[in-house]
């Protein structure tokens, strides 16, 4: 199986401190990989570094390939156009623009060779909630709607691999389930998905494989079923008391 997204020797350095060191990580098309770990373990740094993107100014090194094509020398926006999409944590919609403008602003004109880029109607079929709010400003959306809009905007760009950074943060439990089900569906449709989640209990239900990160390094990984019984996961994240 050829991985859709693969990285080697990925490292990020913030002012002399190494925040990330990942010798190897790969995600296949159709695979949903969860990345879990404590606060500040480097989960966000991992997905941001795959795009060479950050709101800070880290030095990022290492190789990133998407569908066999090397991306490491490309600026973030070029990687996006190649189909590596990140839905960042925190601010992920354009607050001063309407929902429809958020979606219209990308897609179409940017795509060259194109893979499957979702048309506006496809997006509205997938997220009926967004259709109802199409005229509202990004700033007026609820947390769940913003998350949906973030994902929808990524789909407009014809993704091959999707990186989601804490999509469930701040959402009500019912919404968490909806968002994660959507993510699972996207993977089932053939995307390579890397899902950063702090909510391990919810994530482990949907992912195929789980990667545990501590202090910027991978300390454990394996199929979701096996990882459920891994003591490092069970004790720290699932709150299992010697079951």
């Amino acid at each position: 199986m050829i991985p859709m997204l693969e990285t080697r020797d990925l490292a990020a350095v913030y002012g002399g401190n190494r925040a990330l060191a990942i010798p190897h990580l790969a995600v296949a098309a159709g695979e949903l990989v969860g990345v879990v770990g404590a606060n500040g373990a480097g989960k966000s740094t991992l997905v941001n570094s795959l795009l060479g993107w950050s709101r800070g100014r880290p030095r990022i090194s290492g190789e990133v390939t998407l569908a066999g094509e090397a991306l490491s020398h490309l600026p973030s926006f070029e990687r996006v156009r190649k189909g590596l999409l990140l839905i960042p944590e925190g601010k992920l919609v354009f607050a001063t623009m309407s929902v429809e403008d958020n979606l219209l602003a990308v897609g179409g004109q940017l795509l060259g060779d194109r893979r499957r880029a979702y048309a506006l109607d496809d997006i509205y079929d997938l997220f009926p909630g967004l259709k109802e709010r199409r005229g509202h400003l990004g700033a007026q959306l609820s947390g769940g709607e913003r998350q949906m809009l973030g994902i929808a905007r990524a789909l407009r760009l014809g993704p091959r691999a999707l990186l989601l950074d804490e999509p469930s943060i701040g959402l009500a439990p019912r919404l968490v389930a909806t968002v994660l089900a959507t993510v699972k569906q996207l993977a089932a449709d053939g995307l390579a998905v890397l899902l950063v989640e702090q909510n391990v209990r919810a994530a482990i239900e949907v992912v195929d494989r789980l990667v545990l990160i501590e202090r910027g390094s991978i300390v454990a990984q394996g199929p979701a079923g096996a990882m459920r019984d891994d003591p490092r996961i069970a004790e720290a994240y699932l709150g299992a008391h010697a079951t």
Partner: protein
Amino acid sequence: MNLAQQLINGIVLGHAYALIAIGWTVLLGVARLVNFGHGQMYMLGAFVTWYTVSRLGLPYLVAVPAAMLAGVAVGYVMQRVMLQLTLKQDLVSIMIVTLGFGYVLNGAAALVFGSTGQILETPLSRLDIYWGDLWLTWQDVALVVAAIVFFIVLKYVIDHTAVGRTARMVAEDPPLALLAGINVKKVYLGVFAFEGAAVALAAALVAPRTPILTSMGFDEVIVTFVVVVLGGIGSVLGSYFAGLALGLFTAFFGALVSPAYTTAAAFLVMIAMLVLRPGGFAAAPGSR
């Protein structure tokens, strides 16, 4: 004082001001950038127009795009040089760099065009319109019409086209725009090139009203500040109305009080606004 004549003067002047300021409005509103070399770019636009018409003997309609092309080139080079400062959003350094650029343009223009004043004559500026005892030229009419058309087109482009949406995304959040696949650097370069073209267009249309000198540009930059601040930073429609208001103010203040102190008076109003509402800039779209 002839009230109706002052009203006409004010309206013409107002459209001139709005047009002079529009490049800066877009610069600040769309890219959150500033350009203190704006006045010298206006000067350059006026001289390129003059040179094309008077020295090369080409038609005015060729001179206008020639001036705009020169404006695009200067804007592009400026932004290219300070791209790193732009990406860091180091506004204070950008301000000084553009001030330096203006100074360079001033020296270069004097070197090329000489330091004597010139009159920029266009086919329209010699055609007068008399209406009772009221007077204006066809150049004035062309200026007003061009300004209105320019503002309508610009407003449409920003609100309803892919280019406009792209620019608005960069204005609001450059890092997030990168994640939407937008080449932010290219947008910055484009916006500065637009600023150059817009101010050159303004110069080609407005400069025939007065003699031109390579040392000019000071008044234009003042006018621009006032229009941009009064209009609500970065608002296209706001700029239009602010320009109009400033034009009327200038016409009537000049006629009733003193023409020498008009700019000073307008500037004091602007300072008062900035001091009373220092959040004005921070609240602009595109600020984070």
